[in-house]
C-alpha cells in the first residue's frame, strides 16, 4: 500500500526533468539575448549551488566560501590562458582539480570538528583568496582591476562566442551535473553522507570513514564551483576579485537554503529567486536588496524547509523541532 503510494507520488517526477530540459532547450527561440544572459547567469549559480548542495545538503557541512572556489576556477584558466597561452579547454581540468585539491587542504584539518568551525574557516578562506587576488599575488592576478582579454572556450574549432552557444553550454553542464549528483546521492557514498548527517558517531562505529566521506563531498563541491568559474571567465573574458566576494558565497548559500537544502529542484527555484528575480526587478533599484532580505526572512518563517524541500531534510527539520519542544 505504502509502496503504491510512493510510486504514484513519484510518477509525475519522472516527467519533470525531461520536460524541464526540453523547455530549457527551446527557450532561446522565445527569449532575447538579455534574458538569455540572465538565465546563463542563473545557470552559473546553479552549478555552484549544486556543488554546495553536495556539501551542505548531502554531507551536512557548512561552507560559506563557495565563491572563493569559483574565483579560483576563473583565475586559474585566465592566468594559464593569458600568461602561458593554455586554451580554456585544457585549463578547465586543471582549474577543477586545483580547486578540488584546495578544498581538500582547507577542509581536511577541521572536518572532525563541529560544523560551525567549518563555516568560519571557509569564510576566512574566501577572504584570503579575495585579498590575494586584490593584492596581485605573484604579480599575475592583475590586482583590483583583475584580468581581461581571456580567450573564449573553443572545442575542436567550435568557439562558444555567442550568448546562445554559452547558454547551451551551461544547460549541458547543469544537466550532466544533475545526472552525476543524482547518481552520487543514490550510491554507497550518498548513503554514507546521509548516515553522517543523521548520526555521525553511529556512522563511524558502523564502519563509515566519516572524515573521508565528508572530505569527498567538500572536494566535489569545490570542483563544481571551479567549473562554474571557468565557464564564467570564458564567456565574460574579464574578471575581477569581486567575483570572489563573500556576498557571492552568501547568495549561493541562500539559493541552496531557499530552494530547500539537499533538494535538486530546489536549487532551480532558489536560483530563480536569488538571481533571476532580482535581475528582472532592477527597476526597483535601491529597494532591491532590502526586498530580497525581506523575502528571505518571510521564507524562513513560513517555509523553513525551503520552497521545494527534500523529503528527507524536511523530516530531519521537523524532527529537530519536535526535539526542541
Amino acid at each position, binding site marked *: 500500500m505504502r509502496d503504491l503510494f510512493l510510486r504514484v507520488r513519484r510518477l509525475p517526477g519522472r516527467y519533470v526533468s525531461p520536460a524541464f530540459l526540453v523547455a530549457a532547450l527551446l527557450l532561446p527561440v522565445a527569449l532575447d539575448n538579455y534574458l538569455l544572459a540572465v538565465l546563463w547567469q542563473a545557470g552559473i549559480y546553479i552549478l555552484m549551488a549544486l556543488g554546495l548542495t553536495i556539501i551542505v545538503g548531502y554531507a551536512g557541512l557548512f561552507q560559506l566560501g563557495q565563491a572563493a572556489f569559483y574565483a579560483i576556477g576563473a583565475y586559474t584558466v585566465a592566468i594559464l590562458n593569458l600568461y602561458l597561452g593554455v586554451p580554456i579547454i585544457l585549463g578547465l581540468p586543471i582549474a577543477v582539480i586545483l580547486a578540488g585539491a584546495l578544498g581538500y587542504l582547507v577542509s581536511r584539518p577541521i572536518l572532525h570538528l563541529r560544523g560551525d568551525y567549518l563555516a568560519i574557516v571557509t569564510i576566512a578562506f574566501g577572504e584570503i583568496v579575495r585579498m590575494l587576488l586584490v593584492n596581485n599575488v605573484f604579480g599575475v592576478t592583475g590586482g583590483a582591476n583583475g584580468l581581461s582579454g581571456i580567450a573564449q572556450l573553443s572545442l575542436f574549432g567550435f568557439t562558444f562566442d555567442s550568448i546562445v552557444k554559452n547558454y547551451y553550454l551551461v544547460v549541458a553542464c547543469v544537466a550532466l551535473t544533475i545526472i552525476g549528483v543524482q547518481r552520487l546521492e543514490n550510491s554507497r557514498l550518498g548513503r554514507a553522507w546521509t548516515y553522517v548527517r543523521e548520526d555521525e558517531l553511529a556512522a563511524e562505529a558502523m564502519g563509515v*570513514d566519516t572524515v573521508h566521506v565528508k572530505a*569527498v563531498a567538500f572536494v566535489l563541491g569545490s570542483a563544481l564551483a571551479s567549473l562554474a568559474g571557468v565557464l564564467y571567465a570564458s564567456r565574460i573574458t574579464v574578471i575581477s576579485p569581486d567575483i570572489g566576494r563573500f556576498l557571492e558565497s552568501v547568495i549561493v548559500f541562500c539559493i541552496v537554503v531557499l530552494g530547500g537544502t539537499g533538494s535538486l529542484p530546489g536549487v532551480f527555484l532558489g536560483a530563480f529567486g536569488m538571481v533571476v528575480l532580482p535581475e528582472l526587478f532592477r527597476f526597483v533599484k535601491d529597494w532591491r536588496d532590502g526586498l530580497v532580505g525581506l523575502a528571505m526572512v518571510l521564507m524562513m518563517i513560513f517555509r523553513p524547509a525551503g520552497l521545494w524541500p527534500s523529503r528527507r531534510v524536511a523530516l530531519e527539520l521537523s524532527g529537530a523541532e519536535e526535539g526542541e519542544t
Partner: protein
Amino acid sequence: MPLLQVSGLTKSFGGLMAVHNVDLAIETGQIMGMIGPNGAGKTTVFNLITGIYRPDRGQIRFDGRNLVGLAPHVIAEAGIARTFQTIRLFPNLTVLENVMAGRHCRSRAGVVAALLRSPRQRAEEADIRRQAEQQLRFMNIWHFRNELAKNLPYGDQRRVEVARALATAPRLLILDEPAAGLNEQESAALMALIRQIREMGITIFLIEHDMKVVMGVSDRVVVLDNGSKIAEGTPAEVQANPQVIEAYLGREDEERISYHV
C-alpha cells in the same frame, strides 16, 4: 590465542578514574557477559574497545592486532560491531537503509564508480541490498523494511540495531544492554537470538543488567565495580562470589543512605 585480549586498560576523565587496570580475554565462540553497578565503567570499556575513546594506558588486541589508536571505522572493518545503550539508529532513514549502513565497510565503490554506474558498482549495490535484506529476515524485521526507523516500537528498534551490526559481518559483536526496556517475553526471544548468533560463529560480548538474561546466556561473566574488575568466572561462580554480592548489596546500602541524606 583469545579473540579479544585486553590488558591493563585504564581511562580517566578529568579526575575520575572510569576504568582502572582491567584485564579481559574472550575466546572465539564465547559469550561473555559484563555486569556491575551503574557507573562501574562498563560502557567505557566498550567505548575503549571500539575506538570511541582512546585508553590512557593498556593494550587491546583483537586477533593479535593492536587496536589502540585506531579510528572506530577501522575497528569496525577489523570485525568488531556494536550496538548502543541508548539506541542510535539513523532515525529518518528506512529500516533497510539503516541496515545497509553495515555493509559500507564491506564495499568499495567510490565517486567514479557511482558516476559511471559501472556493472561492478551495480553488482555491489545489489549485493549490499541483498546482504542487508538477509539480516532483516534473520532479525524478523523484514516487514518493517520500508518504515522509518524512528517509527518502530522500541524493541524492534533494538532489533534493527543488531541487524545493522550483523550486516558488517563481525567476528565480535558487542551488545550494550540489549535487554533494556524489553518485557519478559522479548527478553527470552533475545536470549535465543544471542545463542543463534553465536551458532553462526560470532563471538559475543554483552553488558546487561537483566540478571536472568546475562546469567542465562553467558559462558563467562566479568564483574566491574568502580572501574576495576572484581571477579570473573562462570555465571555460577560469579553469583557465589562474596565480593560481587558485596558490590551489589553494599552499593545499594550506600545509595539508600545517600538518598536519605
